[in-house]
């Protein structure tokens, strides 16, 4: 079990846990928390591969993660603003009750 | 440093790194905790004198043993946890405050070769652990299940987040000029003397403006007066730590003061030349004496400001951060860049002074535009 393999196992588990939360929880904020966990798992993957690659001085992994962190922060801000606005309209954050465009 | 090497040489070889690290940690905790005890008594007596009264003067000669009495009180007081409180979060909140602020002290170079760790990204580490303390404020406020506590916590977090931006931007001017995030390199860049004057960054136009901005933002980050609305003793009793008593309250108090020391230490590192002496013929005084002298000077400045200025209201506070300090910090960044590229001499002083003072006057005017201020009248008691 090489060290890279252990880091990939950790990131896989984090990704699947985030996916389960995003797909099954009722509250919209919990879905967003799951999405943030998935993004973080992907970042861990990038850094692990960067560290163990043979071209580590190109810093490509670190660059990608810098931009990924920035984009994830922007997306969390806009997503939470949307949830607050929707909550003002529907008076609930339950995703199963927001079905007015369904069917 | 020879003292520390002599101590470490007593330990067996394989344990030497661990023993060295433990000695650094023990030294930091011991020195700054004693400084905390000293500061509590200095603050109470200083505030008392500014307010035309004596401070505590019962416990020892001039009250110098008051911190011991305070410590005994904090340790033996009953620890009351409200019944509806969230016990785990209520318990962890003081720890989440104290641990990051002690971590932040690790990157400050206290003397020559005396920074506990020398990260390549030391200043970034400092701001990262500073940001982690905001979570403890929320945990303390929310877990007490008290409306006033939650309100105080929300206001404190809004204030801390708003003032983080000018704080980091004014630090970025120094980082930009030095070209490194490492605290020891920033101190080394301020070595040397220009005739009689030291090469500190505070003695340049952009450095002076940056220092003032940093000090104001540091007062707001540590929730000190005039920015202490979240914990204003005459407003909502104790804000987000209303429901804490005994040792946990003492931990919050400790965390706040150590945070103040850490951010003053960073101000000294960035602007006041770290452990360098101010005049070339005073170099024989050890470097850590200069650092602690400057630190005590900054603490005295904070106590003075606390005793003098009235408290800012919440909207005044936020307006000040976003509409004055943020544009001022950006203009300062521009002035620092201009300073770097003009040759040393009279021209760059003139240009940078205009670049800093001009926007300061214009921004100050624009903040006062919408107010109708009546002429101040005084009524004296007969």
């Amino acid at each position, binding site marked *: 079990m090489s060290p890279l393999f252990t880091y990939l196992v950790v990131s896989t588990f984090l990704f699947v846990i985030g996916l389960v939360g995003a797909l099954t929880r009722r509250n919209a904020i919990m879905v967003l*928390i*799951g999405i943030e966990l998935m993004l973080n798992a992907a*970042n861990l993957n990038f850094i692990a591969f960067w560290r163990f690659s043979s071209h580590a001085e190109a*810093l490509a992994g670190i660059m990608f993660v810098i931009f990924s962190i920035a984009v994830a922060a922007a997306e969390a801000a806009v997503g939470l603003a949307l949830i607050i606005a929707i909550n003002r309209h529907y008076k609930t954050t339950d995703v199963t009750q927001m079905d007015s465009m369904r069917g | 440093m020879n003292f520390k090497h002599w101590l470490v040489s007593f330990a067996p070889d394989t344990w030497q790194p661990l023993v060295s690290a433990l000695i650094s940690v023990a030294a930091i905790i011991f020195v700054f905790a004693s400084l905390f005890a000293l500061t509590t008594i200095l603050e109470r007596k200083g505030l008392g004198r500014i307010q035309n009264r004596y401070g505590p003067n019962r416990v020892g000669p001039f009250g110098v043993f008051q911190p011991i009495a305070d410590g005994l009180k904090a340790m033996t007081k009953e620890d009351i946890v409200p019944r509806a409180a969230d016990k785990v979060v209520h318990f962890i909140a003081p720890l989440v405050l104290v641990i990051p602020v002690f971590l932040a002290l690790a990157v400050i170079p206290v003397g020559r070769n005396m920074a506990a760790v020398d990260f390549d990204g030391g200043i970034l580490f400092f701001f990262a652990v500073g940001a982690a303390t905001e979570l403890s404020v*929320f945990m303390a406020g929310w877990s007490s299940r008290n409306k006033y506590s939650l309100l105080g916590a929300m206001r404190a977090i809004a204030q801390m*987040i708003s003032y983080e931006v000018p704080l980091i931007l004014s630090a970025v001017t120094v980082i930009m000029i030095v*070209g490194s995030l490492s605290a020891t390199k920033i101190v080394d860049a301020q070595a040397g003397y220009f005739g009689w004057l030291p090469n500190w960054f505070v003695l340049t136009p952009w450095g002076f403006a940056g220092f003032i901005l940093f000090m104001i933002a540091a007062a707001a980050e540590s929730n000190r007066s005039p920015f202490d609305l979240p914990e204003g003793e005459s407003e909502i009793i104790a804000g987000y730590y209303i429901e804490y008593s005994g040792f946990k309250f003492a931990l919050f108090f400790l965390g706040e003061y150590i945070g103040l020391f850490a951010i003053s230490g960073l101000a000294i590192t960035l602007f006041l030349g770290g452990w360098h002496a101010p005049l070339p013929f005073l170099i024989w005084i050890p470097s850590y004496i200069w650092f602690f002298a400057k630190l005590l000077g900054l603490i005295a400045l904070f106590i003075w400001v606390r005793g003098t200025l009235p408290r800012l209201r919440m909207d005044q506070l936020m307006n000040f951060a976003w509409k004055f300090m943020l544009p001022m910090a950006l203009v300062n960044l521009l002035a620092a860049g201009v300073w770097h590229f003009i040759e040393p001499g009279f021209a760059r002083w003139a240009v940078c002074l205009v670049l800093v003072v001009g926007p300061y006057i214009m921004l100050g005017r624009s903040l006062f535009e919408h107010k109708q201020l009546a002429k101040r009248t005084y009524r004296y008691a007969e």
Partner: protein
Amino acid sequence: MTVSFAIIAILTIASAIAAMTLRNLVHCALALAGAFAGLAALYLQLDAQFIGFAQILVYVGAVAILIVFAILLTGGSDPAKQPIFSSGWCIGAGVALAVLGVLVWALRSSHTINETLPDVSNTSVRRIGDQLMTKYILPLEVIGLLLTAALIGAVIIAMKEEKTK
């Protein structure tokens, strides 16, 4: 696989599971902050110092607090009345299990798992800055634009509308 890595990895995964399964939303958000901190420790173990500190500064210091504010503003701090998992949770769990299977198969059948640790001792912040200003200048400008747009957009979306009745 060192002891410190095992402890940090187990703590991170446990915080992530807690973040997804607890009833009280604020506890979930705090467990998420704990998972972020564990991830920052993992980045530091991988010699990515800048990313580790940036993770704490951005995620623990800003995103976690943002989530907590949103929970409080949407009334999530009251205990939940209905079940916390939606009614179609079996399908969601099934999809996640399928994804887990695919990822595990991909991990086990890959050959590019290096055994040696290359030398990255010259990864300084200065080199990251140099690369950002020369090779990655266009993404840097685009990120600036994106963050500005997100800032303005979030404020506009969450602003209270004035009722014109």
